[in-house]
Each structure stands twice: as C-alpha cells, then as structure tokens.
C-alpha cells in the first residue's frame, strides 16, 4: 500500500512555519510552527509573555513577523525586507485580501463606537468586500439573532454589556465569512458572570465546523472544545496535541506549573 499524496482536502487552511518576531532586542516568538485544517479548533495556552497574542497578531499582520512563513489557503503572505532590515508586507493588496479571510476577535471587543451594532456588523462586508447593502443587512440580522442580539441592532456599543459587545464583535468577524476566526483572549476582559455567554457562542461555532484559533486562559473550555491544544512557553511550542494527549499525561514541568497556577487563579 502506498501513501496517497496529500489531497486538496487535507491541505491546511492556515500554515505557519518557523515564525519569529522580535521587538527590539526582545525575541517574543522564537520559531513557532502550526497548521490548522478546516473545521479544527486550536487553543493556544501560555503564561503572559509567552508570545501567544503576538503569534495571533502576526498571522493577520497586525504585527509583521521578523522571519518565517504564513500561508493562508494556498496563498503565502509575501514579506520583504524594508528600510533598517525590518520586514514589511510586500503587497498591501494581498495583505488586505488575506486579512478579509481571517476574522479577528479582540480581548477588548474594539467595536466602532460611533456605529450601531448592526452598522458595526455590516461595515466590512459593504465597504471592504463590496457586497450589496441589502444582502449584508439581511445576513447581519440573521447572525445577530443567532448570538442573541436581535433586540440590540440599533444600540451603540457603549449601551451593551461586555458579554453582549463581545458577541457583537464575534458577529462582526463572522459577517466577513472568514475561513478562520482568530480569538485573542476573547473572555479576559469580561466579568466572570459574562464569560459563559461568550463561550457558548464560541462553542456553537465550533460545533458548526468553524475553523478557530483561540488564545485563551479558559483551560476548561480549551479542554472541552478544542481538537488541538498548543502550549507556548518563551516563544516556543512546548506542548502540542489533542486535549487527551496534552492534559492526560503531563510531561512538561512548566505546563504543569501553568495549569496549577491557572487552577489557583480560578478557585
């Protein structure tokens, strides 16, 4: 029996290879590689300063990596050496195109304050993807209803609780019909009683087969929802595997300490 060449189906939606990022003399990412296949939910854990947010921000070029490769679908992000030896995107249009395929959810929601919830959700579909307004509105209404915000369409972000704002922000990212959703500590800015409603939305997205990359401190959630868990330490992947592998036999001492500290923090 011969091993079949990897088919189109098996091609990862996102591939990151040997990604490095330095801020001045500080090397935050020291060579991280990961692959996300369609429908996979990958949780990225790590202590603060381990580079997990930077990794996520490098993927859609909110930070420009110092070295390494990022491939979204079958398109590799082209980087070039700018003045002073720092890397910068070679093709601004390509960056725009790729970013519009990656939905980003931020820790502090970052909804646009001057737009209503509905306007926030239809903004990028209309003004970035150039979709017809009526279609964007219809889709936005359906999505907002799904996350339980049907009655908040015409409210402004400031009028919503943190949990509602984050659900709206997730909807805003979904409205772009992204290939992957990137979550940067989506529940870290929320009051404990509001975390659940956001996790519930993320859980249902995972169940629907959305490809998700989640930087999180919610160990329990990572354990239950993820297909794969990555533990970063000092800018390198220290542990990687299915939740069963990662949480079953803990070999890494620093991962054990991290889990211990998290458990204490939550008790």
């Amino acid at each position, binding site marked *: 029996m011969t091993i079949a060449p990897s088919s189109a189906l098996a091609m990862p939606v996102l591939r990151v290879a040997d990604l490095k990022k330095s801020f001045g003399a500080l090397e935050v990412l020291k060579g991280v590689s990961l692959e996300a296949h369609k429908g996979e939910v990958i949780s990225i854990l790590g202590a603060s300063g381990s580079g997990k947010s930077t990794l996520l921000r490098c993927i859609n070029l909110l930070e420009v990596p110092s070295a390494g490769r990022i491939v979204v679908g079958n398109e590799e992000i082209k980087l070039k050496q700018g003045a002073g030896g720092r890397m910068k995107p070679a093709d601004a249009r390509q960056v725009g195109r790729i970013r519009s395929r990656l939905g980003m959810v931020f820790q502090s929601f970052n*909804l646009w304050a001057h737009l209503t919830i509905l306007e926030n959700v239809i903004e990028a579909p209309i003004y970035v993807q150039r979709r017809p307004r009526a279609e964007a509105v219809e889709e936005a209404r359906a999505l907002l209803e799904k996350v339980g915000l049907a009655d908040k369409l015409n409210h402004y972000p400031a009028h919503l609780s943190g949990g509602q704002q984050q659900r709206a922000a997730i909807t805003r990212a979904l409205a772009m019909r992204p290939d992957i959703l990137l979550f940067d500590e989506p529940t870290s800015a929320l009051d404990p009683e509001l975390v659940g409603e956001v996790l519930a939305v993320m859980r249902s997205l995972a169940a629907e087969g959305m490809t998700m990359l989640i930087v999180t401190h919610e160990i329990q959630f990572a354990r239950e929802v993820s297909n794969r868990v990555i533990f970063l330490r000092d800018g390198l992947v220290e542990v990687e595997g299915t939740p069963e592998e990662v949480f079953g036999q803990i070999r890494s001492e620093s991962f054990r300490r991290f889990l211990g500290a998290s458990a204490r923090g939550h008790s």
Partner: protein
Amino acid sequence: MLAFMLDTVWQLLGGVPLTLSLTAFAVANGFVIALALVLMRSSPLLIWPARLYVFLFRSVPLLVLIFLVYYGLSQFSSLRASFLWPYLREPYWCAIIALSLNTSAYSSEIIRGGFQAIPRGQIEAATATGMPRFTLLRRILLPLAIRQALPAYCSEIILLLKATSLVSIITLMEITGIAHRIIASTYRPFEVFICAGAIYLTMNFAITRIFLAVEYRLSPHLRPAPDAPAPQREASA
C-alpha cells in the same frame, strides 16, 4: 439714545454679510488645509513641512499676517505681474488668505488631537478586516476624530469670527469697520461698540447652538440607551 442705538444696529447689520463670508471662506479653506496637514503628519517626510507650517502661522500674530499679505506681497513686482494680482490687490481676498492661514494652523492641531484620541483598538479592528487605508480614513478615523474635535473646533470658529474684526484695518467695512466709521462721525464709541458687541454675541450664540445640535446628532452613542434607565452606571458600580 434708544433711537440712536437702533439706527446704529441697523447700519452695523450691513456689515454682517461680509463678516460671515470672510468667516465661511476661511473656515472652509482652513478645514481643507488642516486636514491635509494632519494627513501629512503620517508621512516621515511630509511631517516636517506640516510642523513648520503650524509653527509659523500659529506664532505670527494675525494682525501681522494680515499686514504681510496685504501690504507685503505688493512689494514683489513679479507678483504684481502675475495672474494672481487681481485677487491679491483686493483687501477682501488678502483677508481671506490671512484668516485661512491662521485658522488652518490651529484647526490642524484640533483635528490632530481628535485623531490621537481614537482608541487604538478600533483602528486595529478596521485594519484586521483588510480595510484599505482610504476607506479606513473615511469610514472610521474621520468620523471618530471629528466627533472628538467638535467642541474645540466650535471654539476655533468663534475665535475666527471675532478675528474678522481685525480686517477693518485694511479698509474692509465689516461690522467693526462700520462701527469705526459711525464713531468717527458721532463720537459715541460706547453705544456703538455695545451694539457691535451685541451683534457678535448673537452670531456666536447661533454658532454655538448649531454646533450643539450637530454634536447631539453625531453622538447618540454617548447618550443613555433608549430603553435603559438613566442611572444604570451607578447601580452597577
């Protein structure tokens, strides 16, 4: 005395159109130039001329600037021969140039402040959608910056309207110019300037109201939600 004041007000009102047109032109020019100056600041190269411009025209007294434009430019024969001369010899256009230079420098600082006050995260959120730079400016940055800058910008327009009184010195018969003329023939500066002051006051009151209305319209996000009880914040704190 009442009859005299009524008569004076009536005469002074003749200067209102000129005062308003000077203000309107200078505000329009000033805004466009100010916006360009703010945008220049995001370029490592163009930031220097932008800074120099602001430094220069904010530092020179407006009166000196008016003199420079009105009396100073005519000194250059090449300018007198150019197609610009029909404009530059008119005190009206000289006044608009001087006022525009002055207010654009101040306005650019006000608008820059508005831009700086935009939360970084909201810019990132737009960038992360792949929004092109110009769309980002038009749809996210400007609307947020303008809202932030509105109160200070209203003050700048009021300052400018009052500053138009300086152009009476280059023979323009706006409100203050007419006031001077009336005083020269009646020797009643107190009543006349009271009347002039009252007219400026009325116009500025109108400007303030207009800006308040615009601000109100543009900031529903800063008011309580339509269905929320007002003292919600204290309750949760």
